[in-house]
C-alpha cells in the first residue's frame, strides 16, 4: 500500500498542525459497541453445539477442518452419527432461510464427522484425573455423551450396557440405511479411546447393589420397551413390536414378516418399521395412524422418505381387532379439540404381520426399592436444571427422563447432566446459565451476503444439485462443504468483513489484525451509527452515551 511520507502541515508560519488535536468523540450521543449474540441455530440445537463457530472454521477450507471438528466435538462427540440422523432444528431457525435457503448445517456436520473418521482424528484425552468414579447406565446417545463429557473433565467413567454392543437406540433402533454401523462403531470406539470403559452385556438390575462403587451415577437406559395397547386378537394373529423387529434386524436376525405388513402408530419408529418391512420383502407396507398428517409426530422428512419408498399411510384409522391375516380398522374423525373419535365405520385390511409402534417405555426395574427416586409418567423425575433424581448423586438423562425423545436431545441432556455431576463431585454450585440474546433476522443487513445475484444463485443451485443438501443420503465433498459453510451469515458475531472499518466517515475504527477484529476509537467516533447499520451480521449495538 502506498501511503504518505510526511505528517500533515499547514502554512509556513504555523508549523505542523493536524486535526488529530480535535476530539470529535465529544459530539457523540450514542456509542457503537461490538456484541456477540447467540445465533438462532445454536439456540435451537438440543445438543448445544457452537454451530456458528465450527462453520466459521470450516470456511477456512482444508486448513480449518480439524479446528472445526474440534469445536464441534466440544459439545457432541458423535458428529458423523448426528450428521446423518439429526432432525436439525438448527436449520429450521437459520436466518439465511429468509435470504434464500437455510444453511445445510447438518450436511456440513456430517462432512466434518466423516473427515475426522477418515483421517483418524482423536478426541482429546484428559491429562489430570479427578479421582472420582462415575457409573453411566446405558450406552445410547445420552450415555455416550455423558461418558465422554465426564471423561473430558477428568473423571473415571464406567458405562454398563445390557446389550452385546453399545449404542442403544442408535445401534438397535435406527435402521442401518440411515446410520451405517461402521460409522457408529468408529465414533464409539473413539470415545472409548479417551479412557471411557464400556462394559458390554452387563445389565444393571439393581441400582443399590452397584452405586456404592461409584461417587455418582448417571441413568441413561433409554426407553427401549414397546408400549402396548389392547387389541382383540385371534390366536393365529402375528402381532409384533416394531422396536423388536428393528432390534432383531440390527442384531442380524431378520424376521419373516410376510408380503403385507401393517404398522400401527405415527412416530419415527413407525416410519423406520415400515421402511424396514419394505426392505424385508413386504410388497405392501401400510402405516395405520389415528390422526392426520398435521398431527403426526414423525418428522416430515421421515414420512416423505417412507412414502417415496412405497409405504402407504392410512390416516384417521385405528386397528380395532386382528384375526389372522384380517385386520379390522375403524375410521376415525377429529372432534372439536382435535382428538380422534371413532365413527363406527369399519373396514378390513389384509396383513401378514401387524407391527405395533405406539410408543416406548423405559425399563426401570433397576430402581426397585429406591423409593426416593420418583417416577412420573413412566420416566424418572429429575430436577429440571441439574437433572438430579430424588437421590443425591444419581442423575438421569435421555429418553429415561422427561423431554423430547430424539438422539440430539439425548446428547445435549447427557452433557447437561455432566455439568451438574461435575459440580456435585467437586462440591461446587452449578453456575447459572447466562440468558442468551438472540441474533434475530431483523438485526442483519443481508445486502452483503451475496454477490451479483444471478451468478451467486447459479453457483448455489449447482452446489445444491451435486451435494443433494439434506434430501440425498450421500455426503458433501470438501469443496461443497466449504461453500455451504460460507453461506453461514455469522449472525450476531463479527466475522471481520471490514465494513465498519471501511465505512466509518471519521476514520475512527481500528483494525486489529486477523482474528482480533476491531475497536472503536472513542476519541473521534461521532456516533453516527453507519457501522451498526452496515454491519452484515448485527454485531454492533448503538448504546446511549451517559456522561
Amino acid at each position: 500500500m502506498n501511503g504518505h511520507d510526511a505528517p500533515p502541515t499547514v502554512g509556513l508560519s504555523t508549523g505542523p498542525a493536524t486535526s488529530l488535536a480535535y476530539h470529535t468523540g465529544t459530539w457523540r450521543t450514542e456509542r457503537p459497541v461490538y456484541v456477540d449474540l447467540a445465533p438462532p441455530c445454536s439456540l435451537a440445537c438440543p445438543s448445544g453445539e457452537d454451530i456458528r463457530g465450527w462453520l466459521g472454521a470450516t470456511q477456512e477450507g482444508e486448513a480449518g477442518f480439524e479446528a472445526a471438528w474440534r469445536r464441534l466435538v466440544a459439545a457432541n462427540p458423535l458428529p458423523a452419527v448426528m450428521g446423518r440422523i439429526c432432525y436439525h432444528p438448527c436449520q429450521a431457525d437459520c436466518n439465511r432461510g429468509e435470504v434464500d435457503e437455510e444453511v445445510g448445517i447438518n450436511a456440513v456436520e456430517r462432512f466434518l464427522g466423516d473427515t475426522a473418521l477418515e483421517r483418524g482424528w482423536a478426541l482429546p484425552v484428559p491429562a489430570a484425573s479427578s479421582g472420582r468414579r462415575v457409573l453411566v447406565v446405558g450406552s445410547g446417545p445420552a450415555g455416550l455423551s455423558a461418558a465422554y463429557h465426564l471423561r473430558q473433565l477428568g473423571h473415571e467413567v464406567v458405562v454398563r450396557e445390557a446389550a452385546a454392543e453399545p449404542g442403544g437406540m442408535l445401534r438397535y433402533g435406527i435402521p442401518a440405511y440411515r446410520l451405517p454401523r461402521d460409522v457408529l462403531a468408529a465414533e464409539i470406539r473413539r470415545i472409548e479411546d479417551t479412557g471411557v470403559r464400556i462394559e458390554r452385556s452387563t445389565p444393571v438390575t439393581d441400582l443399590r447393589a452397584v452405586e456404592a462403587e461409584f461417587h455418582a451415577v448417571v441413568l441413561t437406559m433409554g426407553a427401549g420397551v414397546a408400549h402396548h395397547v389392547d387389541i382383540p386378537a385371534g390366536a393365529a394373529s402375528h402381532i409384533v413390536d416394531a422396536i423388536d423387529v428393528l432390534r432383531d434386524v440390527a442384531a442380524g436376525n431378520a424376521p419373516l414378516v410376510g408380503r403385507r405388513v401393517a404398522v400401527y402408530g405415527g412416530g419415527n419408529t413407525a416410519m423406520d418399521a415400515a421402511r424396514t418391512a419394505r426392505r424385508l420383502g413386504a410388497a405392501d407396507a401400510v402405516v395405520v395412524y389415528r390422526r392426520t398428517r398435521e398431527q403426526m409426530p414423525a418428522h416430515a422428512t421421515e414420512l416423505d422418505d417412507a412414502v417415496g419408498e412405497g409405504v402407504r399411510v392410512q390416516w384417521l384409522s385405528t386397528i380395532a381387532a386382528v384375526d389372522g391375516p384380517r385386520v379390522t380398522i375403524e375410521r376415525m374423525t377429529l372432534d372439536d379439540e382435535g382428538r380422534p373419535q371413532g365413527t363406527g365405520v369399519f373396514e378390513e385390511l389384509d396383513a401378514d404381520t401387524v407391527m405395533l409402534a405406539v410408543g416406548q417405555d423405559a425399563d426401570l426395574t433397576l430402581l426397585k426399592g429406591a423409593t426416593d427416586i420418583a417416577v412420573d409418567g413412566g420416566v424418572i423425575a429429575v430436577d429440571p436444571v441439574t437433572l438430579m433424581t430424588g437421590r443425591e448423586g444419581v442423575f438421569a438423562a435421555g429418553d429415561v427422563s422427561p423431554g423430547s425423545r430424539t438422539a440430539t436431545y439425548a446428547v445435549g441432556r447427557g452433557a447437561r447432566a455432566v455439568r451438574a455431576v461435575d459440580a456435585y463431585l467437586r462440591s461446587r454450585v452449578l453456575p447459572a446459565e447466562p440468558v442468551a440474546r438472540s441474533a434475530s433476522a431483523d438485526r442483519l443487513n443481508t445486502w452483503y451476503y451475496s454477490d451479483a445475484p444471478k451468478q451467486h444463485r447459479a453457483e448455489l443451485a449447482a452446489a445444491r444439485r451435486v451435494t443433494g443438501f439434506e434430501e440425498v443420503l450421500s455426503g458433501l465433498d470438501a469443496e461443497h462443504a466449504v461453500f455451504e459453510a460460507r453461506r453461514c451469515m455469522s449472525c450476531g458475531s463479527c466475522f471481520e468483513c471490514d465494513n465498519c472499518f471501511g465505512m466509518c466517515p471519521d476514520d475512527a475504527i481500528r483494525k486489529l489484525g486477523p482474528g482480533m477484529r476491531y475497536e472503536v476509537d472513542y476519541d473521534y467516533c461521532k456516533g453516527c451509527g453507519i457501522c451498526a447499520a452496515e454491519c452484515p451480521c448485527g454485531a454492533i449495538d448503538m448504546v446511549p452515551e451517559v456522561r
Partner: protein
Amino acid sequence: MTTVHIPFLQTGSLAVGGRLLSADERSVQSHSDRPSSLTKGHRACQGCAEALAARWVMDTAVDAAGGRLVVANATGCLEVFSTLYPESAWKPPWIHSLFANAAAVATGIASSLRAQGRDDVRVLAQGGDGGTVDIGLAAVSGMFERNDDVLYVCYDNQGYMNTGVQRSSATPASARTATTPAVGSTPGQAFGQGKSMVRIAMAHEVPYVASATPADLRDLEAKVRTAMSIHGARYLHVLVPCPVGWGSEPSQSIALARSAVQSGIFPVLEARAGELTDVQRIRERCDVTEYLRPQARFAHLFRPGGEDALDRWRALAEANIRRYDLLGGA
C-alpha cells in the same frame, strides 16, 4: 465494467473486505495501513458521506499515484470541515482555492509539472456540487475542453449545505431547501430545473467519465484506479447523502445511496470519450419511496397532495432505467 470479481467468501464483493480474502483481492479501505488521506478529527457532521467518499477516493488515488498526489480543493463543505485554521485533516499535499476555480488551480499545477518535465506527480481536483455544477462550471468546462491532465471529483450532496442548505442546480426536483420551501402548489425545487453534470462532462468527450456512490466501495475504488491509469481530463461524480441537508438519519447515509441506485434515481455508469461504455445494473429494484421517505426534505411528498410528485419521481426513475438500460436485457 470496472467491477472487481472476487470469489464468494461468505460475503461477496459488496462488503469492504473479508478475512478470507488474500491481500491483493482486498479493497484499499480494508487494509489496516490504508493512507487515510482524510484523517480523524475533521468536523464533518455525523454520518457525512462526503467525508467518507473523499477518503475512499483519495486513498485509492494516493495508492495509484505511488504516494505522489497533489490535491486542489474548491470551497465548500469539504474544505470547511477539513481545514479549520490552523489544523488540517488532509495528509496529501493539498491546496485551498476559491469556490469557482479549483479546476483552474489544478490545471495550473498540472501545467507547471509538465513545464518542469515531471510526469511522476498526479493532480486531483475536488469540490462539491456548488463548486462544480454551479459556480465552478466555467473552469471545469475549460479544464475538460483543453483535456488538462487532472482527475476532477465532484461530491454531489445536492445543495449548499454548509451555508444553510440552499438550492443548487444539482438539487433534485421537489426537494425542500432554505431557498425552495415546501409551500405553494409545487412545493420544493421545481420540476424541470437543474442539470446533469455527468452528461455535461460526457458532452466534452473527455477520456473518462464515471459516476459512483458510497454504496459500492469496490466500484468506486475501481473507477478511481481506472481514472488514474489515464492521462488527460477525467471526471468522477459521486453521490454523497447529507444527513443535515437531506434531513435523514446519520446512520442511513449508505442505505440512501443504495436506494438511490436501486430505485433507478442515480445511474452508476462509465463513459469513455463521450460514449457510454458501461452501467451498473439494478440488483434489487426498489420503489422511489424507499429513497425519498427517509429524507425530511421530501416529507411533503408523503402528505395529501404529494401523489403527483411521487408519480413524477417514478417517471424519472423509469426514464433513467430506459436511457441506461439499468435493468439489463435491452
